[in-house]
């Protein structure tokens, strides 16, 4: 069931800087600054995928250190081949799946998604990967399964960051089954058509574009289907600040900062903040998953 979602942001559609500046000047000249829909313009600007350099040098991957530049510096230590993923729990065909075998069976497509970090910055990333639903179907989801739990590799010899207990390692995450089966939810294995670099979660990481970035767990070694809501790392660390759902929501602030706007990575020292969109701009696709839920309570 690949190709269930068509990119709305494409590399070809991205507005070149010069054209964009022209348009802004023209609009400003015609209607005066007060009438210009600044948020729209800012959003149009954000459609351009970030550079390879931005995406691979500015990472949160605490297993390799807490500074943004640490993963790019340290993640080369991680051995990603061979790589096995254990798929277990409520599945028909549990087992240790070889990453190469998975790749042979999956259809790889490009998905250009916004990425919104809980720290109030954002990027646009051209991922390559396959729908998580396809992988779960390969293992056969049993009818009683309601949630999917994920686990990142824990290798103290290859991950200098796990020697300090910033979080309770290994990093774990989880989704409700309907979220996991949603066409937008992918397993990313590439970036800009190349193999995904280690600092971005090689060889295989989750991407859930309507949730804060930390939900998109990296370097996955285990996927477990369960009927109870699985524990998640940041929720265990601070439940008041990080909920199980962690959908991008400008109306529900983080306990320590506002979530109603974001810094756009790659715009330099004078980059304009842009308003954060409900479900990170994917409300049309995913709002239905949460109908009738109080999103301030289930943050």
């Amino acid at each position: 069931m690949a190709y269930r979602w068509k990119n709305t942001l494409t590399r070809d559609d991205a507005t070149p800087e010069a054209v964009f500046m022209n348009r802004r000047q023209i609009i400003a000249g015609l209607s005066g600054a007060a009438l210009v829909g600044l948020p729209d313009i800012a959003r149009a600007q954000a459609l351009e995928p970030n550079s390879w350099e931005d995406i691979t040098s500015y990472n949160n991957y605490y297993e390799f250190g807490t500074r943004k530049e640490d993963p790019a510096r340290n993640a080369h230590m991680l051995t990603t081949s061979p790589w096995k993923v254990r798929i277990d729990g409520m599945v028909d065909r549990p087992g240790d799946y070889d990453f190469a075998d998975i790749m042979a069976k999956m259809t790889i497509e490009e998905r250009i998604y916004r990425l919104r970090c809980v720290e109030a910055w954002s990027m646009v990333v051209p991922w390559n990967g396959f729908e998580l639903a396809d992988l779960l179907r390969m293992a056969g989801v049993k009818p009683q399964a309601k949630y999917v739990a994920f686990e990142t590799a824990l290798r103290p010899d290859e991950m200098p960051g796990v020697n300090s207990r910033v979080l309770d390692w290994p990093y774990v995450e989880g989704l409700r089954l309907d979220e996991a089966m949603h066409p937008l939810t992918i397993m990313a294995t590439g970036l800009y058509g190349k193999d995904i670099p280690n600092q971005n979660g090689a060889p295989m990481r989750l991407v859930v574009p309507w949730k804060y970035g930390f939900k998109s767990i990296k370097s996955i070694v285990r996927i477990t289907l369960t009927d109870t809501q699985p524990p998640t790392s940041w929720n265990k660390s601070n439940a008041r600040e990080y909920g199980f759902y962690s959908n991008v929501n400008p109306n529900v602030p983080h306990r320590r900062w506002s979530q109603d706007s974001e810094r756009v990575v790659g715009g330099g020292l004078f980059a304009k903040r842009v308003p954060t969109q409900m479900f990170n701009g994917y409300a049309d696709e995913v709002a239905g998953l949460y109908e009738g839920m109080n999103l301030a309570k289930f943050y």
Partner: protein
Amino acid sequence: MVGALNTRLRQVPAWLIYAGGLTYAGWLFWLGLTGGLGAEPIQALERAYGRAALYLLVAGLAVTPLRTWAGINLLKFRRAIGVTCFFFVLAHLIVWAVLDVQALSRVWADILKRPYITVGMAGFALLLPLAITSNNWSVRKLGAAGWRKLHKLTYGAAVLGAVHYVMLVKGFQIRPLIFLAIVLGLLALRAKWRRWAAARLSA
């Protein structure tokens, strides 16, 4: 040994600290402009200025214990350290308000609503009278005793600065806690331990 060191130190002009601080701040800004601070330079610059301010706060607090416990005299540099520290706090605040938050209404909202920002602003407020009175005229005007008393606000500012740092990190991070411990340790060294011990002995 210490005497020779102190003689050497007397020959070092204090303005080097101002010059070094300005150069470092300008260099960081230049790095931010030219991509040297990474893909997202706004927060990187904000944090770098904040970190410099914290280091200088610690340096300023270390002057007295170094003299008391090691005999090393850095007193002539203390004003320069303090004023340069204030300069970095101000730069940190400006980068936060102008480049990061970008709207006065949101700046106010953050100061009132976000505890770690409230704490940081309180620290800045404590430093303000110190920066204003860091000149000989003010020392004369306030009198040495009064001036010294006023400048004890540094202790509060240092604690608030370290707490601000502790409060803004995600997860359990050791660096800000070490920082807070150093600040508290430097303050503890100021306690009148001998008088305290004597009081205990005579009691």
